């Protein structure tokens, strides 16, 4: 039995009615039903919609007249965003929605993506935007949003806007038709952080765990991945977490480029599920182009990764700050299942082939970690490099043991 899917269109019809109508027409041609949420401030009653501007304002605890009376675009936008989120969520509970599509300039993109970010991973989300430039982080956050760059202004229908709107609508139709709510797999999930510099370790653990029926989901810790992992740990049913790359902690403390959130690595501790740590990538911080990196982190060893990024060698001082960070998390929240320290190096950079190798550092970190953690913290130091098979095997064994309990 195939039923037509339903898609929620978010559009400010006071300024974008022609463009919204065009999307509706495209969706209709592809046999997709639509619901419309109109968060317009200037004018309402532009066409028949599912949720009117008045209802959006009301959901934010105010009235459209009051929002207009702000006389301040930013404040009006915040209020209408808040109301739109409330309305979209309640609509989602009442009826089946198979995707969310929106279009807009700077204001519309902020509002549309703020609503999308409130919806689960996997639900198709398409934002047709004039703002889809290189900097999409503020809009996509930690969600699977598709940003389709309109190239020209979305003002009026012409050959360029028609093509972009049609492509966005078609992508949405393609996805919405096969999207089903709650297609969760039954396999238990393990979440793991990494960077290419500790990939061998992560690969070996993943292969072993997949063999015995687990799904392993990998997060790239370059400033967004770790935050996404921490968020998903709280949201999803997760069996265990292996935090193999903690560079976002160091970079947060020292304002490196891979800084993420102030509470990185803490979700699994809070959720009381098995969690394993290794100091992967604690051997470096990430700075910008070489000259900028030297300025920010003077007197260090540097390795130019590419024109934009420089790896900067850490020393005892940084190790101590990171040890303190974990020590405080372990004492205030909970002990980890086990903290593994590879005594022969923390990443590819910190290896015999690497450019930032320093064998004296791992034992120093071990000592500092023991100093700052509660005495009963399970810390295990092993005479291997993080990418040695023996190291991955030790984590895997301990992980299997914890999961079998």
């Amino acid at each position, binding site marked *: 039995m195939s039923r037509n899917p339903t898609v929620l269109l978010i559009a400010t019809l006071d300024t974008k009615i022609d463009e919204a109508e065009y999307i509706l027409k495209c969706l209709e*041609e592809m046999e997709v039903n639509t619901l419309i949420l109109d968060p317009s401030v200037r004018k309402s009653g532009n066409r028949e919609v599912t949720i009117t501007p008045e209802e959006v304002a009301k959901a934010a605890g105010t009235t459209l007249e009051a929002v207009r009376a702000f006389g301040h675009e930013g404040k009006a936008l915040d209020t209408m965003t808040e109301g739109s989120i409330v309305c979209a969520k309640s609509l989602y509970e009442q009826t089946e929605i198979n995707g969310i599509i929106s279009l807009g300039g700077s204001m519309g993109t902020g509002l549309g993506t703020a609503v999308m970010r409130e919806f689960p*991973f996997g639900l198709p989300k398409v934002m047709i935007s004039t703002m889809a430039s290189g*900097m999409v982080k503020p809009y996509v956050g930690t969600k*699977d949003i598709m940003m389709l760059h309109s190239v020209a202004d979305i*003002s009026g229908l012409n050959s360029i806007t028609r093509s972009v709107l049609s492509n966005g609508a078609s992508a949405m139709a393609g996805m919405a038709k096969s999207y089903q709510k709650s297609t969760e797999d039954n396999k238990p999930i393990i979440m793991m952080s990494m960077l290419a510099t500790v990939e061998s370790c992560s690969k070996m653990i993943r292969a072993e765990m997949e063999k015995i029926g687990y799904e392993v989901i990998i997060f790239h810790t370059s400033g967004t991945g770790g935050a996404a992992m921490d968020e998903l740990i709280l949201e999803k049913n997760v069996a265990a977490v292996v935090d193999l790359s903690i560079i976002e902690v160091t970079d947060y403390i020292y304002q490196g480029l891979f800084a993420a959130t102030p509470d990185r690595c803490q979700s699994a501790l809070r959720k009381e599920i098995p969690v394993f740590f290794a100091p992967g990538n604690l051997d470096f911080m990430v700075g910008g182009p070489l000259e900028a990196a030297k300025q920010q982190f003077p007197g260090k060893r540097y390795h130019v990764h590419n024109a934009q990024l420089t790896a900067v060698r850490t020393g005892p001082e940084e190790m101590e700050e990171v040890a303190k960070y974990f020590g405080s998390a372990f004492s205030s929240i909970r002990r980890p299942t086990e903290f593994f320290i590879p005594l022969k190096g923390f990443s590819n950079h910190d290896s015999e082939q690497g450019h930032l190798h320093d064998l004296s550092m791992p034992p120093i970190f071990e000592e500092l970690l023991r100093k700052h953690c509660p005495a009963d913290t399970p810390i295990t130091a092993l005479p291997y490099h993080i990418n040695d098979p023996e190291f991955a095997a030790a984590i895997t064994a301990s992980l299997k043991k914890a999961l079998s309990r």
Partner: protein
Amino acid sequence: MAIAVVGMIDEREEALGLIKERIEQRGHKALLVDISIGTGAIVPSLKADIEYSELSELGGGPSAGVADYLPDRREEAISIMAGGLREKIMALCKSGDLQGMIAVSGLTGAIISLPALKELPFGLPKIILSSAMALPVHADKYAEFVCVKDITVMHAVVDTVGMNSLVRKLSLNGADAISGMVEGGVNAPLGEKPSIAITEFGFTDKGAHYIREFLEKECEIVSFHANGVGDMAAMEIIPQGSFRAFVDLVPGAFSEYLLGGNRNNSGPNRLDIASELSIPYILCPGGFDIISCGPMERKDSGDTLWESRKLAERKLYIQEHPRAHARMNAEELEYITSVAAERLNRYQHKERVKIIVPLRGFSSLSVEGGPLYDPAADKMFANTLKKCIDPEIEIIEIDSDINSKEFAAAVAKTLMQALRRKSLE
């Protein structure tokens, strides 16, 4: 006809395989393109339709692939693969074999794939599914590609390696989106009226609106946001020749570049967009009255722009955070006008270049009663122009501001005359 599925098979075999399978299930042909550089550990069972070795050779690298370059010539390896991929994809596109492209990648794969995506024609479905596209560190690098084309960036959130419920959803959504675009694209109707490009921004909103109203019946107007980034898109698309005329209402990105303002992304060649085209080009001085200088914290922090131009002593217009604008002074206006004239004097078809000057303000900020009103400085534009511009380029002065109906009517009239003259040739 096929949809290209591009990625490193030695890192992402499962996701690529699932995308290919899904595209085929939907009745399309999928062409698997392997951009492996030897970083991955997978020994694939999936067979590529286009092998990495072919791309490496096309890009001027070794026929065995670029793995040997990795230890200390990584950048070179990446640029070889990027060049090879771009060439291969464009060859497929030119022979009419390509319906769309989806790339699945981390950071390196994104850098390899973006040049090919950028080169593909406007309108052809293009998606990049990557966990690395939201990294602020690389935003400037990505901007060079995604700012100028209709590339759909799908944020993967998780790394698309291995197979799990999240990667499965991403892969299916990616495959369904590109297939949907290909299926829907057939119906996208083309405009019948001649297309005209215009640049505009918030401070010339009304003027642009009136111009559109005057021209709407006979033309369709494509508007580029003159915020620096939209200027880059205009620079990429307009020279491709699909527009019948170009109304450069707001060339402010050029003065911003010369003076160091915020909307400077489009660089020194901003005024050369139509220099080799034979279409009518109308230039107005929109934005030649302001310097974008926000956020206001820069004022007291020893900022170079604020200090060197003494912006704190000028008339300022402070919008909501982070936007702020300072009044451009007479001396600066003289300077930018003389440089602009020099650029316009190099145009191949000077007889098609018209400069229309609104004598009562170049933006809504500089009209009488506006926060940046300075008629004496504004005068420098027309005065300098008359001294420096080639006599073949016509200057039309209108005793009104840039947002007035009178001004818009003059622009529309000049444009229609030029189009008619051109069609008589």
